[in-house]
């Protein structure tokens, strides 16, 4: 442990990764490895009801029979799933009424992240449910939300307090056996967020959760469930930063969104896990399953800014089940150095008059590989389905790659599907033009990249957009010599 600390200090000094630090909070960690006993232990530690334990065990059974997928355009050394500890929680059980009671070291962590709860409290309209190493340690604005009947809490709490809702919806959009990582998550998920918006309620504030991986050698398996009941609206923000780690870390989250009739969910993500160093050493493996289900007239918008992780495997998708439902996907994926990203979306049109929009912006620098992979599927009963897809790639330098894999399956003749794609390169002439106007090269790249990403950045809530813009700049620092 001391060795790791030493190394991290060194990394901090070089400031290569702004959020690379390590908080020394005593943790309660289960032994490494995965078997039924471990799963039962996790469930027990979390004081879960029997049905939840059984659900986890069932997922584990599926997982054992599955193989890690290898169709994505990424190359990495497969993690040893028996060498991972599947549970870690801060030891001092936190139940605070005010910030004064919170572990000062934890507060320090938040400060380094630039998201001190203090600040967040002042930031009008933002309730933060901070998830650090799997257990939710601080929840604010709960009262305001409770008045509207909105439930916003950790998933563990929801399992205890609102079992009927969790039981009804968990695994309905992403089944246990959906894919290898989703099955793993279903078996071992440690914590995550739960959100329920009652009928006809418009959530008065942006809901946000910050995830952090903090314990060396601990995988993070977040589980998020958002349910927007009929005619309701919610905007949910998820921001991720992780401390530097020398060995690769696994992150396999599952997010399920359910938008019932006439409901709308806007789900925004900024992902900034440790991408590995300049030589491609270390970094987070980010294998995420995110999917939303739209009932009649419902709408789900995914907006993501992906700048981190060594390997990203992520396809936030929409199942447009109800007639007239709408799915949207707006994405910026930045890869630098040796990062690899294979990301995109699936739009599954089942209902009549369903519409989907896909705007994907890939930015590759260094020796990175950036792939867009998207599927637009129109079912035979989906009359008048429409899709518009636009995939733009921006290349910096000569050693990176941009790839586009669009798949279209249309089984209904009335479908209208459009796909546009462009690839461009930041040119020396553009840089010189900016230089000549007094703008240095780093700033020029930031300006060009922000311009390129504008359509997606515009979809983010205001405070997130500013943060995302900064992240783009940090991620691409030093990418042009």
């Amino acid at each position, binding site marked *: 442990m001391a060795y790791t600390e030493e190394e991290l200090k060194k990394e901090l000094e070089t400031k290569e990764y702004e959020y690379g630090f390590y908080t020394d909070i005593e943790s309660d960690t289960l032994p490494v490895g995965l078997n039924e006993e471990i799963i039962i232990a996790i469930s027990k530690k979390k004081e879960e009801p029997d049905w939840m334990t059984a659900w986890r065990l069932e997922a584990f059974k599926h997982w054992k029979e599955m193989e890690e997928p290898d169709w994505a355009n990424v190359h990495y050394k497969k993690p040893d799933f028996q060498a991972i500890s599947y549970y870690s929680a801060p030891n001092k059980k936190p139940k605070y009424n005010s910030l004064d009671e919170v572990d000062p070291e934890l507060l320090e962590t938040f400060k380094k992240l630039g998201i001190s709860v203090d600040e967040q409290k002042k930031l009008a309209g933002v309730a933060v449910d901070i998830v650090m190493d799997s257990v939710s340690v601080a929840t604010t604005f709960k009262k305001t939300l409770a008045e509207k009947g909105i439930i916003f809490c950790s998933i563990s709490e929801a399992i205890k307090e609102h079992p009927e809702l969790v039981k009804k919806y968990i695994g309905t959009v992403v089944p246990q056996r959906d894919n290898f990582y989703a099955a793993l998550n279903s078996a071992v998920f440690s914590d995550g967020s739960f959100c329920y918006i009652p009928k006809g309620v418009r959530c008065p504030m942006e809901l946000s959760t910050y995830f952090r991986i903090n314990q060396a050698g601990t995988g993070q398996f977040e589980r998020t469930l958002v349910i927007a009941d009929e005619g309701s609206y919610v905007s949910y923000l998820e921001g991720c930063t992780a401390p530097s780690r020398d060995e690769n870390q696994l992150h396999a989250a599952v997010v399920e969104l359910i938008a019932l009739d006439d409901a709308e969910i806007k789900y925004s993500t900024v992902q900034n896990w440790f991408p590995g160093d300049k030589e491609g050493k270390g970094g987070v493996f980010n294998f995420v399953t995110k999917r939303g289900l739209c009932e009649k007239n419902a709408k789900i918008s995914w907006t993501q800014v992906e700048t981190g992780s060594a390997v990203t495997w992520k396809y936030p998708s929409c199942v447009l089940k109800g007639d007239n439902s709408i799915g949207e996907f707006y994405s910026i994926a930045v890869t630098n150095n040796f990062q690899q990203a294979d990301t995109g979306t699936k739009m599954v049109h089942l209902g009549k008059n369903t519409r989907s929009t896909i705007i994907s912006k890939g930015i590759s620098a260094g020796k990175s590989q950036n792939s867009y992979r998207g599927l637009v599927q129109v079912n035979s009963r989906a009359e008048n389905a429409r899709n518009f897809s636009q995939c733009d790639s921006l290349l910096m330098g000569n050693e990176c790659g941009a790839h586009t894999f669009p798949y279209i399956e249309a089984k209904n003749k009335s479908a209208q599907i459009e796909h546009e794609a462009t690839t461009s390169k930041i040119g020396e002439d553009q840089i010189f033009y*900016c230089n*000549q*106007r*007094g703008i*240095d090269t780093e*700033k020029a790249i930031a*300006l060009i990249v922000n*311009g*390129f990403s*504008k359509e997606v950045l515009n979809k983010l809530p205001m405070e997130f957009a500013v943060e995302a813009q900064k992240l783009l700049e940090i991620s691409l620092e030093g990418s042009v010599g």
Partner: protein
Amino acid sequence: MLKIKDLHASIDDKEILKGINLEVKAGEVHAIMGPNGSGKSTLSAVIAGKEEFEVTQGSVELDGDDLDEVAPEERAHKGVFLSFQYPVEIPGVSVTNFIKTAINESRKARGLEEMPANEMLKMIREKSELLDIDRKFLSRSLNEGFSGGEKKRNEIFQMAMLEPKLAILDETDSGLDIDALRIVANGVNKLKSKDNAVIVITHYQRLLEYIVPDFVHVLHNGKIVKSGGKELALELEEKGYDWIKNEAVV
């Protein structure tokens, strides 16, 4: 203000400028004319500090400082402005956002605070009126889908906003119709003062009817082969560049 001494510059080991001498004082307008390939655009790029060009001999001085090791953006901060012959497109970055960034970067370099928004807006309004620029134009992506005339007008708009000490107009007249030419030239004339200087690089005499130079230099084969007053431009127009070429040979 600007002193160029025996300047030699090459690209990919090919020498383009072969010993340029030129002095520009505050308040002056210099025109540099010459046939295609004589090195006009290279000269402007070298003054602005474009790194593909290698200065092999001689020097460029601004206010007594040698610019040799000075980065292009620092030259801009010192007050060098180049109106590009072919301005580049930057999709998604509005004219306003671009100029705001440019102004604030220069201010930062001078140790000043960012320009307050209301001041910036006022300045944008004034300068766009001066150049007859539609406000809608300012929210468009920089140079994307602009006509030739719009691009050049945008260059002069940026010049007006940045208030440079030394402005180099590289073929600003190319691609302009007569009305646009007049607007651009008017703009340049209004911005002229005893404290700044302008170098007009042009192939034709046309622009010089509107921006009247104090000196005219003829560039041929990487050298200034003839200098004179504004009447030299007329003489060139009449006799053509062959006259200079022949004279240079002699």
